[in-house]
């Protein structure tokens, strides 16, 4: 009985089932065209005229259930009546002081310390030395070069602000993540409770994290940190759990037989054995923290993100590019440093003399001390005087902003006609018709389609789940905007699939080429999503098309990468078998490589979709009339209930797709006997 609820339609019948589903959908659409669909099934009715909040042609808001009021009232209740606010205020204060400590160290300051700020040469020296100690010259140059970039291009203050936020959020996230992971490992009930939460956490767009945090912690520096921590903890939990679960049972047995207590077993056997996954978790925490810290700029968190947002809003594109580079460099450096640390071989040095064993630490201390002393006499070594418009001489920083702006101008002028034509074509011939058809479809049609797809892939359970998600959206009154978001995501994902998968296939033909592409994918994935807005704005200005293009560029990376990985991981013995059967290259691709790689490619498409949902919200910043834009509006109006409702709408759409694709991929893996 349980199986029939969970089982989708049998694979051989799927084709026919999908056909029937599409036929029903088409039928409803025909009825809609003939205006034979009852009003309530087209758009759910409003519960009061008063709730029609904004009228913008598209996106009228007629809510059936006033979720936002419900949420707002619960927030107030939690905050005031339950006294949450005392707790949260205490936490805010604590965090603020920790952040201040780091700010003082890095930037110098007023409150409490009386220290000189760390000279930039000292920070650069630390970066050079650590980079070299972890991997060698290349990493040293990358790390040191990044710090020097910050100083020379006038980004020092803001990058140090970002670093302070990272210094607070990263260790906290790691510790909380590990603790939760251990708890989930030890108690199955806890694991069962936390896994769905982790799933939701992964599909919630970055932005949605900001809302509940603002509710409880107000707006300020510490809020950014808290949102960052909440965002970064799930991957750490997941990977800690995975790592601990992967410890070979025999290892645990040998630990027990060696007389370990439970605590010793945990810290001496299990955690060290889970090292690989946990190191990956640390790397992910760092990258997620950086991404989130940049987005937190939207609620005023200082640093590179804030600066970028500022410059973008006043259309200072040249400076925006420089800041963008800074963020990108920081991302790559942090990623490479943490990976180098994870991969570093552990030499057993207990028998070496002190000065050899700790040689890097000694060099570090000596250099930093020297730097402080030198900075005392040469203030320029502490902070490079910045060249600004009002003080153009006697300064040491350079700026290439003008250069970038010239390039942008040149591109815009010379390619104006081409870009305009392209834009018109895409918007008028592709986007608008697609959007209109999404909006034309009555609610019942979309519900039938989604629930049907869920049923085919996962039985009654999936159908029910996805229906509930979409009914929520319908009841909330944001259906039209959700459909606009949905069409943008669908268009973007389709383009990503059509371009990304063939690209991945092409890349996988030669091992060298595959490796090159994978390195590029890795690098691109370290960039905070925000960055992708830059080139798009530069070329296409601020409009609908730019938003979608930004989404495509961001979301195409997983499609390419998972395709490559899926194909190159086909076992060589199967390659030999099909070679001996006399396969041509084309037959090999379609008969062996693609079928075997399909589960992995499906996961890639899943990620692409999740990325697209996430990015769509951010791209709304460039001005589209969809859920993302409504979220911004809600935030600026401090209507947090509305913000949460909107966030949930996006999240539910993403969750539905995630649920279906994951199910499908898992089933294919079982079929191929890959589990």
């Amino acid at each position, binding site marked *: 009985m349980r199986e029939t609820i969970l089982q989708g339609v049998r694979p051989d019948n799927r084709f026919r089932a999908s056909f029937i589903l599409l036929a029903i959908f088409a039928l409803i659409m025909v009825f809609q065209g003939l205006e034979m669909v009852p009003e309530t099934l087209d758009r759910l009715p409003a519960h009061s005229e008063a709730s029609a909040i904004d009228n913008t042609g598209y996106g009228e808001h007629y809510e059936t259930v006033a979720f936002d009021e419900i949420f707002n009232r619960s927030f107030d209740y939690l905050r005031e009546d339950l006294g949450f606010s005392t707790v949260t205020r205490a936490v805010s204060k604590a965090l603020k002081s920790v952040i201040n400590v780091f700010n003082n160290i890095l930037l110098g300051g007023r409150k409490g310390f009386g220290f000189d700020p760390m000279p930039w040469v000292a920070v650069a020296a630390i970066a050079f030395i650590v980079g070299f100690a972890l991997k060698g010259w290349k990493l040293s140059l990358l790390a040191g070069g990044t710090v020097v970039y910050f100083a020379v291009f006038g980004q020092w203050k803001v990058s140090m602000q970002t670093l302070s936020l990272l210094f607070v959020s990263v260790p906290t996230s790691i510790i909380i993540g590990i603790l939760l992971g251990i708890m989930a490992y030890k108690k199955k009930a806890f694991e069962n409770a936390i896994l769905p939460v982790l799933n939701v956490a992964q599909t919630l767009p970055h932005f949605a994290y900001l809302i509940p945090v603002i509710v409880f912690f107000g707006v300020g520096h510490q809020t950014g940190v808290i949102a960052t921590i909440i965002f970064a903890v799930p991957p750490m939990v997941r990977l800690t759990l995975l790592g601990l679960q992967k410890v070979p049972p025999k290892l645990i047995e040998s630990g027990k037989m060696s007389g370990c207590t439970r605590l010793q077993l945990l810290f001496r056997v299990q955690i060290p054995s889970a090292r690989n996954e946990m190191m990956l978790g640390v790397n992910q925490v760092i990258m997620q923290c950086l991404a989130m810290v940049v987005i937190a700029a939207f609620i005023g968190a200082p640093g590179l993100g804030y600066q970028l947002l500022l410059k973008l809003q006043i259309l200072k594109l040249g400076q925006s590019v420089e800041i963008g580079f800074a963020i990108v460099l920081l991302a790559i450096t942090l990623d490479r440093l943490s990976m180098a640390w994870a991969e570093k071989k552990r030499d057993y040095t207990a028998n070496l003399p002190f000065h050899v064993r700790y040689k890097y630490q000694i060099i570090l201390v000596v250099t930093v001390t020297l730097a402080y002393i030198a900075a005392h006499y040469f203030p320029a070594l502490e902070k490079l005087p910045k060249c600004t418009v009002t003080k153009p001489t006697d300064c040491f920083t350079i700026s290439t902003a003008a250069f970038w702006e010239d390039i942008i101008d040149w591109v815009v002028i010379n390619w104006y006609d081409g870009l305009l034509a392209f834009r018109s074509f895409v918007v008028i011939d592709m986007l608008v018709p697609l959007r209109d058809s999404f909006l034309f479809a009555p609610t019942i049609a979309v519900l039938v389609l989604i629930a049907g797809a869920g049923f085919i892939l996962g039985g009654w359970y999936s159908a029910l789940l996805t229906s509930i998600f979409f009914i929520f959206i319908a009841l909330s009154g944001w259906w039209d905007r959700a459909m606009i978001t949905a069409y943008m995501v669908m268009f973007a994902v389709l383009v990503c699939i059509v371009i990304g998968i063939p690209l991945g296939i092409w890349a996988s033909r030669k091992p060298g080429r595959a490796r090159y592409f994978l390195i590029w994918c890795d690098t691109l994935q370290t960039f905070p999503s925000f960055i992708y807005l830059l080139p798009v704005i530069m070329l296409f200005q601020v409009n609908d098309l730019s938003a979608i293009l930004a989404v495509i560029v961001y979301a195409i990376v997983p499609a390419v990468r998972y395709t490559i990985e899926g194909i190159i991981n086909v076992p060589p*013995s*199967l390659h*030999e*078998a*099909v*070679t*001996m*059967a*006399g*396969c*041509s290259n084309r*037959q090999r691709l379609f*008969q*062996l490589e693609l*079928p*075997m790689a399909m589960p992995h490619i499906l996961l890639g498409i899943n990620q692409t979709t999740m990325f697209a949902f996430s990015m769509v919200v951010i791209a709304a910043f460039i001005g589209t009339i969809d859920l993302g834009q409504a979220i911004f509006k809600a935030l600026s109006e401090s209507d947090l209930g509305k913000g949460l409702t909107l966030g949930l709408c996006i999240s539910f759409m993403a969750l539905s797709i995630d649920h279906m694709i994951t199910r499908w991929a898992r089933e294919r893996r079982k*079929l*191929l*006997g*890959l589990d």
Partner: protein
Amino acid sequence: MTIEATRPVIHCKNIFKIFGHSAQEIQGKSGGKVDQEFLDNNGLVAAVNDVSLEVYPGEMLVVMGLSGSGKSTLVRCLSRLIETTSGSINIEGEDLLAMSEKELIELRRNKMGMVFQNFALLPHKTVLENIAFPLQMRGMKKEDYVARALKMIELVSLDGRENDFPRQLSGGQQQRVGIARSLAIEPDIWFLDEPFSALDPLIRKEMQDEFLRLQSILKKTIVFITHDFDEALRLADRIAIMFHGRVEQCSTPQDIVLNPATDYVKKFTNDVPREKVLTAGAIMDEERPDDKPAAISVNQSDIIEDIAEFILGQERPVVVHDDDGNRVGMLHRDTVLKILFPGDK
């Protein structure tokens, strides 16, 4: 058995497969003298070191060796799954190494079949589709390849399992699918790379019996790789023993057991109970002048183990005849005793 009289199906000469940076040029410069010192000096590893072999029509050549002996590499050179560093390989008189990609594909679709150690079945295809795969590759029509595949299924006794997937089959059954797939195109040349090594010992014996049965029907030209000396003795017409990339000895099982060529070969033959391998024909003597033969005679291909008791029970020497009934020699009791109880090894 005079197999040598006909032309070899596979003829390889001076095959080298050397792994390492710029192996080909360095080897060319060696002037034919590629020994261990040469390899070490140049940082190279010779997986196959100057191997020359012939395989005759209808013959089963077993290439036997331990891990690292080069046997898997050799068979991959012969099927051109990997490229030889130097040497020549002729398949039915044609130069294999000169063939283009297209010609190779044609060869594999029509003339060669291969069975793999870990079965290498496509997990997303049914048993029937796996077996029919090489037929599909060459464009056969659906009715035809389904019919042929069903015949193969019957041949390997897997009736009723045609719509199952590989993961639903046991190891032995999966290997039977692998065998059926390799036979589907009715190849002239059949390669088997340690086909039974991944199976349990009892299943292995069953599969060997099955295999001998198939060979008695099909009479293919076979190159069979194994690391199991007993398996080699059981199945082979001739055995080529490999060690460190070289062929130590290549001869009939009887010859190897009776006359091991090197100390390395002796290590294997020492432990073989000779009476299980040797035939009457292998150890028979010339007729002695004062022989008064017994009434009953034995066939030259009878295994000593089977006839020992009979011979020892006779008071007189026993005639050995061939399949046509002609006298080819005599077996005396003392000869048999010496085989059964050798004084020293």
